[in-house]
């Protein structure tokens, strides 16, 4: 079961409204554009908050529960702010048989959170991912856009340290 919408409120009104308006004008209001719009809104705002989703629903003339229904179906969408550094550990098959669980466990220990959570200081969030397509270098973890292969619990420490985290 996935977590359903939180009502995260954006701190700063004007910039996000502008961003959403820009995205909406670029995509037009066909229903087929809904997912691309949500993807771009999330890319700009880091997560989908209620007000932004309401804007999208209005523009596409869809009901709010329709938009929520679509957004919550897909694992990609987040409804609360992620950490400044998004950490992901791969739990795909190749990574699983080569110790991906140990990498995840090391990340959870080092960050002091479980996957799906964000550290109290908002620096790191930890997610699981089904496969990054780098299975030949399993186990794999990702921080932001940086993908690292052949991970071990000690390499986890090294990588996190580069982002100022880990103890």
């Amino acid at each position, binding site marked *: 079961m996935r977590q359903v919408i939180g009502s995260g409120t954006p701190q700063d009104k004007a910039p996000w409204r502008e961003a959403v308006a820009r995205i909406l004008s670029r995509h037009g209001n066909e*229903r087929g554009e809904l997912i691309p719009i949500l993807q771009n809104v999330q890319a700009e705002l880091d997560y989908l908050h209620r007000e932004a989703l309401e804007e999208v629903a209005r523009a596409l003339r869809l009901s709010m529960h329709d938009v929520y229904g679509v957004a919550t179906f897909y*694992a990609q969408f987040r409804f609360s702010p992620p950490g400044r550094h998004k950490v992901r550990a791969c739990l795909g*098959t190749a990574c699983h048989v080569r110790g991906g669980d140990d990498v995840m466990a090391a990340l959870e220990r080092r960050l002091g959170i479980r996957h799906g959570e964000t550290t109290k200081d908002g620096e790191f969030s930890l997610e699981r991912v089904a*496969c990054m397509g780098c*299975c*030949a270098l399993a186990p794999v973890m990702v921080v932001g856009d940086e993908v690292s292969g052949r991970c071990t619990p000690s390499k986890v420490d090294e990588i996190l340290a580069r982002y100022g985290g880990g103890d």
Partner: protein
Amino acid sequence: MEADYWKRGAERWKALLESDVPVIYVGAASCGRAAGAAKVEEAVRAKLGDLSPTARVVEVGCIGPCCLEPLVYVQRPGKAPIVYGDQSPETVAVVLESVLSKGDLLMDKALGVLSEGAQDGIPSFYEHPMLKPQTRLVLRNCGIIDPVEIDHYFAREGYLGLKRALSMSPEEVVEEVRASGLRGRGGAGFPTSQKWTFCRKAQGDPKYLICNADEGDPGAFMNRSLLEGDPHAVLEGMLVAAYAIGASHGYIYIRDEYPLAIERLSHALQRMREHGLLGQKVMGTGFDFDITIKRGAGAFVCGEETALMASIEGRRGMPRPRPPFPAQKGLWGKPTVINNVETLGTLPNIMRMGGAAYAGRGSEKAKGTKTFSLVGKVKRTGLIEVPFGTPLRKIIFDIGGGILNDRGFKAIQSGGPSGGCIPASMVDLEVDYERLTQAGSIMGSGGLVVMDEDTCMVDVAHYFLTFTQNESCGKCSPCRIGTRRMLEILERIKKGVGEEQDMQRLTEIAQTVKDGSLCGLGQTAPNPVLTTLRYFHDEYEEHIRDGRCRAKVCKDLFHYEIDPEKCIGCQICFKKCPVSAISGKPKGAHTIDQARCVKCGLCYQSCPPKAKAVKRADNGPDEVKG
């Protein structure tokens, strides 16, 4: 002016190969990048600044042996490129210095040369044990050309297949593909020409073509590699398919975890437009076609064709019953063909060489070649391509070099969450659709995960069920509830609290889920459980009766201990232990506090080989249940 494309391409390609300055090629596909290719490339540029400022650096895709990444090829003027593997910023600087200024080719480090024959005493890279047994047709350009250079693709006879197709009637193209024996590479192996014919004959306008690049099997990356390394091959294939079925618009549905592939595709589409290969009057003919990229949003079920279409339409990605098949009623109710990336990527070869010539390879019922991602507990991991009918033994032991750390080979998993585990005893099985199905597995899209004696088969079944249960869209109850119930049973077996009847229960539920589910996800979800029950019954029994996991994977069933006789008191494990569960004095025997231990295995992995004092021991049955 169109004929100039190939001429210009050939000239630019020749200029690169015969460059009078050194050319350094860096394997910069996702796998290379994950292994650190970006830093290596930086180091290459820095070093060239000192050594040979006019030298060129070219990013190429993945040639296959991902285990050797980051790969760097060094081309000296007038010579074929020499391949060096496992490069780091430090080693690549040494390689460049030696090869370019000292004339020392570092023979012991050179993996081969990228030419047909040997050069300067270095054998051809194609003779490398990982590459030699392969037949590279779909992957022929991967790792060879610069994927952002459409000219390189032209130089390698790119778009000649399309040119030929456009000179034929659509029916003739379908006929050529029928003669090739091409079957879908996305899973089920449905004959491509047949699917196309249904769509051609269907009433409705416009018609759509969809390229399925969702690659949902977690542990497989064939489609990613092809899209990153040779995007035009897939795009050319899309044009051929669209022409054959009479489609005017195409979509590429690609998973969002593949940002580089998306970038390569967008770039390639741009080049195609500039070259009159997309839009109106493709290649100056009356054929109009355009392509849109749609990014997936993270749902495995969206690889299933009807769910995929729902997702493109902006809805929840839920499958619907078939018929009607997409070829009759597909995207927005219009006739639609959905083909996998590799199916499409094969079409240029078929159109260029002719269907009959293509059908000359492969097995009786499956023609041509298939790409596989070979991963898991095998020495050489990577992307490979072999003719259908190649025995598993050849794939695992010749191409893959055998089992990692020379452990015992236990099983190979094909087909991802929809597939099954084939035991070591069936290692001579010749891989094609029918034989894998007979063995209880499926071909799937080509993921192969090798498992050794340290892999627990109950854990593998549990792993896949966790995945499918999580990804079940919930529309039909056999899949939604059945996978949940099976997972619960597997969970208790893993914990050592399974019951005697559990195996029977699993089999019964599995059958119901198989028979009753709406789409392929549910219909195949029991396969990992059924095949492990069939071939590894004894492992289930051990878990249930003896509370024992022989592979020492199920964490409730074993513990780590230190042999006081063997411990040399080096304190390595003491320092590594993340939860301070280990105590002991330097040079004295150490002990593990079982109450604190989280079984991360760091002590076991870090104990020096000369001591080998950390052991994994079974918990007695009492300890489990208590």
